[in-house]
Each structure stands twice: as C-alpha cells, then as structure tokens.
C-alpha cells in the first residue's frame, strides 16, 4: 500500500519532468527553425548608421554576439549549453533591452502579474462557484433566474471590449481610478500605506474586469453542473429523508459538482505565468503579459523563450499538484 503510493508519486513526478523537458526542448527548437537570425539582425541594427565597418571587426562582433546569444557551434552544442545555463538560472540576455538578463525582466514583472491574477482568479472562482451552486440548487427561484440572465449577458462580451468599457467609464468619464500603471509615479515601492493604497487603486480596474468575466464563466459552469447533480438519486434520497437544505447543498450538491471545477482552477492558476496579455495591455499593467507583448513585437527571442519556459513549468506543476491532491476531493480516484 505504502509502496504503491510512493511509486505512484514518483511516476507522476517523472511524468511531470518529462513534460517540462519536452516543452522546453520544443521552445528551444522553434526559434532555430525560423529564418530570422538574431545575430545578423543585431549587426544590421548596429551598422545601420555607419558608412562602413571594417570586415574584420564585423567578423569579431559576429562571433562575440553568437557567444552572447548562445548561438555558437552546432545546434546540439547550443542545446547542451542552453540546459547548462538554464540550471544555473540563466536565461540569457534580453535582445530588446540588451544587456539586461531575461531573468531580471521576468523577476520584475512576475510579482505584478502574480498578485493581480492570483487574487482576481481566486475571487472570480470562489464567487462564481458559490453563487452558481446556489443558483443551480434554487433554480426555480426568481433571483436565480435573474442572475442567470445577467451572467449570460455579461459573459459573452468580448473581454477587450468589456475592459475598455470599464477603463473609459471608471477612469476617464468618471475618473475614480487611474488610467494606467501599477502604482503612482513618484511613490516609492515599499511597505508603506501610500504605496499599498496606490497599488490597490491601480490594480482595482484590471482585477474587476477579470473577476466580472471570470465570474460569469464559473457561475454558468457551476450552475449547469449543479443542475445535473440535483437530479441524482442521492440528492432526492437525502431530501426525502429530511436532511436540511443547507446540508444537502454543502455536503451533497457542492461536494460533487465542484470536482471538475477544481481541475479548472488548478489549470487557471498554472496559466497565471502566461500573464493576462490583453488585461495588462489595456490597463498598461507592467506584468508578464505586457512583457510578452513587447517581446513579441521586438522579436526578442530570449525573452519569449524565458516566458514560455516559466509558463510550461507552472502549468506542468499545477497539473502535478492537482493529480496528487485529487483523491482528497474524490475518493473514487485512488492513487494507483
């Protein structure tokens, strides 16, 4: 029993590592299959305003750029070098904001994204599921139907339109919230009330837009899950036996309907490391999504790869964790 449990965990961890390995390998390969040569691009950029450059100096520059970008030798040698640097936590320099290392850029952006998305995803998920469960269980009540219609109206609005609407309404027409950024310019980052309140004020609109749309999806999903569960015999039986409604809702309805939603939450949390590109773009929020956006537009392969690697690892870990935790939520799933 104990052994089987251990074997299961080891197997799952290996599987997870395998996924990460394959994912990272693919992200390594893809830029090398594109016709764009970052070294040549850099050379072109540098020589653009110079009339002539000594060919020997040019050759030397090419070589040192190749070393810098990790583009020396055969693809296989590059690949080995890439893993070696990865294990030392070195993702190479960013090409667009050269010579700052990719790691530093990600490290400055990640807290903003994580803070914004972690809170808003969890709030949207909890609210959507709790209210969705109530609405599904009391589906014949008036308020439940009204809520359902509201969610159905809000949810299909394209996110970028909704976000712009919020921004225009609450930051421009009625300027309660700031238009852009993550904190007021001039306030110094630190654990003081000024800075924290500024962060909260700046984060409110992006968070609100994510919560509103995320809530609609979770609400509708949970409501239909619940309406399936309440037609199960064990619900009817508990009702006939006179088990109080709140207890049926908690222990019978939600416990069963929540199972697929838990998987959804784990995946969403893993996706956080992708950043929320549209949110961060609309609200000029300095997170991973915004970073990725600028990286793509400036052809910054190093940075794109760095972000991709982070998100591969995060999603794979999220799946691993949910796999290991799932038997706690659903006794029918056994670790085997």
């Amino acid at each position, binding site marked *: 029993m104990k052994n089987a449990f251990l074997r299961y965990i080891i197997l799952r961890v290996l599987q997870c590592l395998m996924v990460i390995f394959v994912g990272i390998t693919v992200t390594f390969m893809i830029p090398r299959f594109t016709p764009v040569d970052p070294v040549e691009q850099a050379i072109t950029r540098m020589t653009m305003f110079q009339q002539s450059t000594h060919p020997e100096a040019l050759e030397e520059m090419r070589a040192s750029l190749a070393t810098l970008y990790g583009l020396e030798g055969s693809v296989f040698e590059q690949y080995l070098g890439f893993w070696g640097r990865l294990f030392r936590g070195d993702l190479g320099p960013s090409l667009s904001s050269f010579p700052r290392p990719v790691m530093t850029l990600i490290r400055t952006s990640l807290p903003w994204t994580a803070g914004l998305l972690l809170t808003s995803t969890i709030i949207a998920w909890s609210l959507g599921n709790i209210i969705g469960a109530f609405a599904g269980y009391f589906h014949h009540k008036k308020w439940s139907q009204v809520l359902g219609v509201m969610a159905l109206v809000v949810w299909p609005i394209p996110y970028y339109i909704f976000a712009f609407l919020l921004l225009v309404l609450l930051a421009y027409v009625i300027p309660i919230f700031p238009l852009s950024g993550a904190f007021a310019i001039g306030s110094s980052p630190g654990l003081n009330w000024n800075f924290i309140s500024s962060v909260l004020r700046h984060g409110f609109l992006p968070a609100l837009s994510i919560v509103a749309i995320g809530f609609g999806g979770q609400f509708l999903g949970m409501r239909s899950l619940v309406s399936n569960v309440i037609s*199960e*015999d*064990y619900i*009817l*039986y*508990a*009702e*006939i*036996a*006179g*088990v*109080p409604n709140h*207890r049926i809702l908690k*222990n*019978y309805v939600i*416990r*069963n309907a929540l*199972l697929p939603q838990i998987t959804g939450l784990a995946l969403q949390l893993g996706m956080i490391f992708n950043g929320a590109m549209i949110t961060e773009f609309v609200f000029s929020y300095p997170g991973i999504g915004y970073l990725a956006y600028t990286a793509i537009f400036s052809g910054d392969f190093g940075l794109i790869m760095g972000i991709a690697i982070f998100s591969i690892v995060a999603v794979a870990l999220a799946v691993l964790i949910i796999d290991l935790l799932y038997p706690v*939520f*659903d*006794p*029918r799933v056994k670790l085997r």
Partner: protein
Amino acid sequence: MALKIENLRAYYRSSEAGVATVVRAVDGVNLTIKENEIFGIAGESSCGKTTLIRTLSGTIKPPLEIVGGRVVYDIKEKEVDLFSLRSSEMRALRWKHVAYILQGSMSVLNPVRRVIKTFEDFTEAHERITDRKAFREKVNKHVLDLGLPIDVVTAYPHQLSGGMRQRVAIALATIFKPPVILADEPTTALDVVVQRGVLQLLKDIQRETGNTVVLVTHDMAVHANVADRVGIMYAGRIVEVGAVEDIFQRARHPYTQHLISSLPTIGDRTPRSALPGAPPSLANPPEGCRFHPRCEHAMDVCRREVPPMLEEENGHQTACFWANREAVS
C-alpha cells in the same frame, strides 16, 4: 390498520408548446394496508406503481400533483392525513414513521461521503447526535444486526457491490425502526442469489419489528416469496387485492390470471401464453374498465363503466364485471 388510501388520484401535468398533457398515473386507488404485514403491489411497467408509492411517501414534486383523495397514516392510534401536513410535519413523519427505499437504490448513496457520514446526515435530520462515539456504535450494531459486514460503515459507496449498496440503503431506511417501510423495486437490479439475501433481510426486519412493508415490484416471484397480501395494479388502478395464496391460486381478474399463468412452473414444459396487446397510455386511457381492450371476456358494460371493487371472501376483492358477474346480476 397502518395506512389507508382513499380514492387517491395523482396526475402528472405538463404543458409543452401550449398543449397540456395529463398522465393519470394513479387514478382512483383504494387500499387499506394492515399493520404487521408485507403488502405487495404488482403490475407491469408504467402502470403507476412507482407513482403510487412515491405519493405514499409524500414526495410530491411537480409535475406530479395530487388531484384528489387521501392517504391516512395511523400514527400512535391517531389518524393523520398525509396531504394536510405542513412541510415541517412531513419532514418529521418521514424516516421516523415512514421510510422509503427508492427504486434504483444503487445510486442513493453520496459517492464522495463515507456510509457512516450518510447515516449521520440522515439521523441528524431528525435528532441531535450528542455523542458521536455512541452513535457510531449504534450504527455498527444496527449494521451487524442486519447481517452486514462492519466494514461497510467506513466504506465509500463505490467500494461496495450492488447488492451490498442495496442492503446499506435498507439499513439506512430502518435506522429508526419505522412502523412503515415503503420499498420500490428493491431487488430489480440484482441477480437472484443477491435478491434472495435482500428479500430475506426485508423479511427479517419485518418479522423482528412487526412493522408494515409496502413492497412494489413487477416480479411476481418476489411477491410469492415474501408478500402476505398482494394488490394487482393495472393502468393506474388496483384491479385485485387478496392474500398471496388467493392471488396465486384463485386469481379472479383476467389480468391477474394472465400474470400468474405466464409464470414458469418446474416440470411444466408447455409454452407460456403471452397477454396480447400493450398497456394503455395513461395520458389517454380507455373508458370503462381499462383492461377491456386486451380482455377476452370483455362485455358491453366493461366499455362503458368502471367496475366496482367487490369482495368475495377472506378480503379477496376484484374490480371486474366478468369475475363478479354472479354477484352483480
């Protein structure tokens, strides 16, 4: 008397695209069920058996509607009209006085909760559990008394076999030793060996506590084995009631006769005759006696009038003009 059903009519009303349909699942049922007996209700599929027993349990959810009649329970020498109860009184009545074993009891247990937790939920709906340990011991004793292995208490439903789940459902229904147990097809999904065990369990509980069991099943062999009296239901009505020997040996209603004669007998190799036709739609039942389109003895009066329930002897009642032709004429 344990319970009395008086002219009970329970219909399913629904309307689709403005067209209202009424399915008369239970249409004028009269029955008196005695204390300390196993009363069997037999009949084909879709004859209203499940609706009848569901109505008896007071589980009336739309589209099911009570159109008329009464269900009267005898609770501590007092007559209680089921449909006059408020929902809190109904809740108090259920499980303590009337327990209901659902059709398809295999899936009545919450898949994510241990069996003991379901026992706790069902018990706490009616009384406070002050001492968890004592309660656990009570459940253990109850389960052991019913001859189930003690492990079922801590198991999850998916770890139990179908027969075991059915037995757990019965244990769950009898935790308060209710005077009336309503059992809807408790053995239908089980193989015969397991069936025997489940039936024996029901029988033992009944013998021991002297309560009343209303057993609904289409399986005549089950009735022959466990029931004391049997009511035959056809198209929403009871057509014949009698002691189990009377029903099986002296069936009077042509429908009952067909049911009995279709049963195989050991040593008899002659082919069994089948009843021609299909049961009528309860949305649009035939006039008069509902069996007349399939009946070889049908007379003119059968097409016009509903036959009254007449008693022959020993409580053996039949609603049939042909069977009662001497008494009527």
